């Protein structure tokens, strides 16, 4: 077994702040929307908690973004430029999760310094981090102060549209928060990737 340093410190710091923040946002978000069903904290406290954790994650997001923009680590997100090959790799990865894994086949993806993600991860993480998460932050920011951002709210289509987008993505993140750790548990041992996300080192053959 060889050890590869795949998750640099800034990414790990970003990741665990983000993960903890998301969990708090999901819990407080559920209370805000379903105050009649879940009533843990007083409503105004929930609003403030949701807002401040949201701001923390927005700042934290830039840690991730700037790190990748200003280091050569961004290569881990470089797309496979040959579409046929990319498609083939994605299919193989899907096939593995949906079939091969049950037979005990080996994971078709091999981690290396600049290839820490399999093609599914690479695409999914990019869509999430460059599209979904920023939209979630932006709509959250607008809802925080509807008066100050009145012009932007109107451009977006009105407060109900802003909220509907915010909640729709929320729905997605709720599913994500269960599926993502599960997928992360499919390393050579269940805890391998979690350890890697903590220490930075992934063990490879």
């Amino acid at each position, binding site marked *: 077994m060889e050890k590869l340093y795949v998750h640099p410190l800034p990414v790990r710091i970003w990741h665990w702040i983000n993960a903890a923040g998301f969990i708090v946002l999901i819990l407080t978000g559920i209370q*805000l929307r379903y105050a009649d069903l879940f009533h843990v904290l007083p409503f105004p406290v929930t609003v403030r908690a949701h*807002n401040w954790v949201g701001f923390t994650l927005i700042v934290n997001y830039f840690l991730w973004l700037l790190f990748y923009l200003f280091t050569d680590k961004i290569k881990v997100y470089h797309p496979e430029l040959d579409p046929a090959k990319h498609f083939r790799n994605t299919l193989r990865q899907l096939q593995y999760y949906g079939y091969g894994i049950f037979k*005990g086949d080996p994971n078709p993806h091999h981690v290396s310094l600049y290839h820490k993600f399999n093609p599914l991860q690479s695409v999914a993480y990019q869509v999430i981090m460059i599209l979904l998460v920023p939209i979630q932050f932006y709509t959250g920011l607008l809802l925080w102060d509807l008066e100050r951002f009145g012009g932007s709210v109107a451009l977006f289509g009105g407060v*109900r549209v802003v909220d*509907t987008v915010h909640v729709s993505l929320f*729905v997605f993140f709720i599913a994500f928060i269960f599926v993502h750790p599960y997928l992360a548990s499919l390393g050579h041992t269940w805890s391998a990737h979690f350890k890697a996300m903590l220490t930075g080192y992934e063990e490879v053959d």
Partner: protein
Amino acid sequence: MALRLLFAVILVAAAGSARAADPSEALPEESKPCLACHSAEGAPKVDAAAFASSVHLALGCTGCHAGVDLAKHPAAKPERVNCAGCHADATKHYEASIHAAQRAKGNETAPACATCHTPHEVSAAAVGEGLKDACLGCHAAAADTHKKWLPNAAKHLEVVACAACHAPAVQRKVDLRLYDGGGQKRVSEDLVPGFAERVRALDKQGQGLDPAQLRNLLDHLAQEGKVAQPLLIGRIEIRNGAESHHLAGKATALRDCQRCHSAGAEPFQSVTVSVQGADGKTLRFEAQKEVLSSPISVDSVRAFYAIGGTRISLLDVLLALALLAGVSAPLVHLALRKLLRKKQG
């Protein structure tokens, strides 16, 4: 008292249709001598044009200032105006308010009828921001003190009538006001002739506009093109306007967010759609409360949404499904892995 109001209503209604292009032309005859002096130097001035566009136009000056004998006036001063004679209901609630209590204690800075409703320019209560500005004129600090405990305070003061929180016993409702050009200006009946007929044609059963009918109405307005980008902006108001006067001390004010921000909250059980009538009054049309929570309304009611209270039910279903899928997909996958591996030995 009731007879006097009935008479006055008939007068106002008759004048409403006969309103002339130059508003001061429409003044009743017996008002003209009054204005001859009261729009010139040397006598306290009354803005004739503003009065002519007020709800009280048809009453004329003498409707309120009864018993002015022109032979003896101005030496003989008219009596103080008594609004109560015609507005018993509003007066009853005002008398029970903190303002009336303060005046009774001799606090002359607390408002009487004519302090909030500038007497010669009384417009229909639900028009514009005039009345809210009157409150803030005396309670200037309120804009800031609410911020201390109320997030989005400026927005709340804009979309929730002060009395909806400060007259705690009232019943509330949502009025969806029709605006022009992305919320610039309220739409008046003149701009959309036949609006009332169209609403009635859509709402055949008279049960209030349902979400599809409301969308239909807005689509039609947009197609017609007279209203550039029709927009409904919601506002929480008092079902019975007269009860807005029943203002109480701050200790009893509505502070519990969940009175609005939770499913089935009382303010969202009654909904109207309104345009400004040609006579300055507000024309309201009933809508079904589902217009606040139907997926069809995401566009038509796009400028009104209160978290928790007006949530879209379809998203609740999606959320439950996402939760179910998120939990069960990993579990099923895990179970299959264990099972199938065991079989292979």
